[in-house]
């Protein structure tokens, strides 16, 4: 079975390698990898689950790689601005240059989450997406 993501070494920062059977899954797994770096869930009640905030996200870019940069940047920036942690991602439309999704967020509170890393930003450094035989693979470096 394909791992959703793994991490790779970078001297000052951190990189993730995400995988997906198709490009939508690849984009989702890259997002989950990023959120895993930010925080880990300690405890959540059914009530928390009912109180998720859903935000519609619409991102455009010149090509698939820049789309991944913009997608992750938008999620990160929302998470930092509003103290949110993604809980459910539904991609509704996906093309080479646009993505429309509904993302449900939970409040990023220390009582519910172990806060791990403050990611400053998604970088374009060495950002790449490759189509392998059976799956897609993306590499992204985060500034931390």
């Amino acid at each position, binding site marked *: 079975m394909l791992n959703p993501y793994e991490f790779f070494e970078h*001297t*000052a920062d951190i990189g993730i390698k995400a995988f997906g059977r198709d490009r939508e899954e690849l984009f989702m797994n890259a997002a989950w990898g990023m959120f895993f770096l930010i925080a880990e869930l300690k405890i959540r009640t059914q009530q928390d689950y009912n109180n998720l905030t859903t935000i519609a996200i619409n991102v455009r870019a*010149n090509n698939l790689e820049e789309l991944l940069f913009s997608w992750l940047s938008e999620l990160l920036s929302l998470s930092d*601005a509003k103290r949110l942690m993604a809980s459910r991602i539904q991609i509704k439309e996906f093309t080479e240059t646009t993505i429309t999704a509904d993302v449900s967020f939970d409040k*990023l509170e220390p009582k519910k989450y172990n806060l791990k890393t403050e990611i400053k930003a998604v*970088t*374009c*450094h060495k950002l790449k997406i490759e189509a392998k035989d059976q799956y897609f693979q993306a590499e992204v470096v985060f*500034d*931390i």
Partner: protein
Amino acid sequence: MFLGGLKFNYLGKMSVQIEKIDETKYRIPKTYKPGMLVDGIIYSDERLLPDLLKDKAVEQVANVAFLPGIVKHSLAMPDIHWGYGFPIGGVAATNIDKSGVISPGGVGFDINCGVRLLKTRLFYDEIRPKIDDLINSLYNYIPSGVGSRGNINLKGAEGKRILEKGAAWAVEKGFGTKQDLEHTEEKGQIKGANPDEISPRAYERGKTQAGTLGSGNHFLEIQRIDKIFDTEIASLLNLEKDQIMVMIHTGSRGFGHQVCTDHVKIMLNCLCKYGIEVPDRQLACAPVTSKEGKAYLGAMNCAANYAWANRQIIMHKTREVFEKVLRQSWEQMGMNLIYDVAHNMAKIETHIVDGKEMRLCVHRKGATRAFGPDNPTLPNRYKKMGQPVIIPGDMGRHSYLLAGTQKAMEETFGSTCHGAGRLKSRTQAIKTLDKRQIFNELKAKGIVIRTTGRDTIAEEAPQAYKDVNNVVDIVDNSGLARKICRVKPVGVIKG
């Protein structure tokens, strides 16, 4: 002079040709990669070079040499390590009048990340029994850690005013004095900030983060002077062995990160628009005089001012904590700012290149401005000695105060290193280092530490960094800055 023509292989794939120029300088000839407009010059020595060749930092020095309008060399300071786009420790200047470019990747996401150094009249023996109290109170009073939020009100018009006035805004709000501004690079308020270039999201992220330290390598340290190198300058600054100092390292927080992200997106479109070819998209750039270049510069200056306000607020809160714990006024304790320097910035400066005055856009990405004596931008107090340069090391060894030199003006556009430079990646540090053992080692050295993050102590362990003593020796030996004194941490707060 071509000594040996060493060809180094790294990562098993690429090889880069490095020529030794002298004991502290190495050249990557522009013939190394088609597209390089100038040579790369790396300040290093035989001790540090092998570590440097382990990652992609050297390749990044070569990549920066592609930037249109670059003059002299693509430079790297001795704390150079692998970054994104530029290497950390990279310096590059472009000629504004010859379509020279500005690149957000040459500044970094943490715009105007920098350091300030505050002195006191206190001596180590006097405060030794109070260090625990001081560190605990500072930790409780100054928000730190992942996503830290403060209580500074930036509602309505204040959100814009902080961007235009920087540290002067903080002083107006009661955080410090006008004297502090005199001792801050650009007086803590760089001109040319344009709040119209700021996105609503950046405002939103900035609203709650002023006066917060953040996480990662950002810190607040109480330090004692451990060694004086230049007695003349030290006495001019009233510095003696065992005197207590405070060093603060932080930047523009989520606000700056958003400004950079917004403008990298814009600049990605500029590569095609202006026919610019760079080997790494993170080097996306536009001519300084273009619409996009001006927009970035105006926004970047806003973030720079936000960062200066941030450090000013944190410094003044530090004074308040010292007052409360030691029951003296900060003025009585002589808690005066020595200097505040930016180490992630692009600035418009005039330098002499090939005997001619040139208007340049100087990118310093993990590099500190180090202007030499008599520079008109320096406050009178520092005109004779040169600009104070603050170089933080790691939390277990040392940090330095140095002075800028004329040689730095001639060779590096008045720039020097910014820290020790990472040696181990964060994941490697967490995997290989024992947190409890690091804590005990620091304790045995008399260093009190408080951290917010679970793994910060391992990520930021002394073993994860190069020895700052070796790095500073290179800048001192090469004449890019000269040592004034060395300090040692006695109390540390990390986010």
